[in-house]
């Protein structure tokens, strides 16, 4: 069984996974997902049509968060039996907010607006072709953070 990304070209895998954005070589604005703009810069002040892939920061600040207590409808592929999962929107140093599921084992009680989160890659679903992976946000809990709380 192999593990393949649930979508091609949006994130790297390995020990230090990262989202893959695209940077306009004219105005340097970064976009995610990398398909955004379809070859034309979305900054209205820029006519750029050339882009380069860029790995986004692996750490960001939680903009907000929630969870999915009910099984989402297709085309979501749920695990059986369904397990609720958390979702977070994380603001990156590149100036954009990116949504993601929250890493396995963490729920809304582990999250708060303004706290730090780190990018990880985990299994989204498994079928007869193997595991399909996705980027996720994992809360960063510093040693002693509970005492600061």
């Amino acid at each position, binding site marked *: 069984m192999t593990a393949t990304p649930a979508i091609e070209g949006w994130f790297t895998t390995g020990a230090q996974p990262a989202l893959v954005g695209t940077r306009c070589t004219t105005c340097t604005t970064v*976009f995610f997902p990398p398909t955004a703009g379809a070859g034309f810069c979305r900054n209205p002040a820029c006519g750029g049509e050339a882009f380069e892939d860029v790995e986004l920061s692996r750490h960001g600040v939680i903009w907000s968060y929630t969870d*999915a207590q009910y099984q989402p*409808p297709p085309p979501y592929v749920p695990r059986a039996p369904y397990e609720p999962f958390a979702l977070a929107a994380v603001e990156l140093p590149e100036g*954009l907010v990116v949504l993601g599921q929250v890493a396995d084992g963490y729920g809304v009680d582990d999250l708060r607006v303004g706290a730090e989160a780190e990018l990880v890659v985990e299994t989204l679903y498994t079928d007869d072709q193997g595991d399909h992976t996705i980027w996720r946000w994992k809360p960063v809990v510093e040693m002693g953070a509970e005492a600061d709380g």
Partner: protein
Amino acid sequence: MSNDVVVAGVGMHPWGKWGRSFVEYGVHAARAALTDAAVDWRDVDLVVGGETVRNGYGGYVAGATFAQALGWNGARVATSYAACATGAQALDTARARILAGMCDVALVVGADTTPKGFLAPNAGERWDDPDWLRFRLLGMTNPAYFALYARRRMDLYGATQEDFAQVKVKNARHGLSNPYARYRKEVSAADVLGSAVVSDPLHLLDICATSDGAAAVVLTSVEHARKLGLADPVRVRAISTVTPTFPNTVLDMPNLSTDSSAVAGAPERTFKESIAHAAYEEAGIGPEDVGLAEVYDLSTALELDWIEDLGLCRRGEAETLLRAGDTTIGGRIPVNPSGGLACFGEAVPAQALAQVCEVTWQLRGQAAGRQVEGARVGITANQGLFGHGSSVLLSR
């Protein structure tokens, strides 16, 4: 020169889960609006339909579908799609043709028949469609987006789930005697807080349902309204259908990310703020003149966001208004006197027009059982998918 047009008539089909064709609802609402305006359908020279994507061929050509069902009368036709702002965009199309002097009487109709449960994307694999990808990759439903906004209010401004529940309590009370509302029943805060959590922190009763329904508006020029003998009619003072300004830095349904503000800098106003701002600018009316607001309470918490986006109070102060009863009928600035989406459930292409119907009845003093006394100016607001949103300002 005035850019006003006149609301000569309004009409609705009751919201519910009727399971019939959207055409039937739309024609019912259209006939009600024509009767209200005392206008013969054969005198209508433009019909604009709000598109409904779930209802097949007829829904995609809504303008012509309604025109045929009313009986072909040779009117010009247009069809609009702008997600939740569909009705306002349709209204704007009618207004433009009237103001250009190319139309005297326009009929605008929106109607929908909705499925049960979560609104899901259309079938088929579409790897370039954010509305498909957000479900496929993240399981990100509409309520999950509403919940992100709600959580921010809690963590940034100290809102509580009890506050959100009180929005529902208020709106349920407002809608009790609205004959067009689907839900006409008192709801307690305990009912809301005792209902299942859908997406934390929102409970089932914090989130609006999806409904069947229809609304229609007859618009005329100011001059033609005089010919019809309409004294002191409600006027459309502004229709804002602005798109976002780059960079759009607030996460919007159905997107997986925002634009980056690193190069272009953060915008002066968020998208929702800019929707209302454009309406105020166009009308030369300020938030201090507004007597009531019909806003898109897809969730209870979202109503609080809108109150601030409309400039009715400062950022982070909407809970203070709510707790003081300011947003209740009889308070300083009643919000959703119709009962809002909490009592209606959303019928997408009809909803922005339903807001205009309600404000019209309020400004005429015809909102029996839910009347905001002495209201002279009302505003509507909504936002939907794909950069759509609208605000309509009306006054006597």
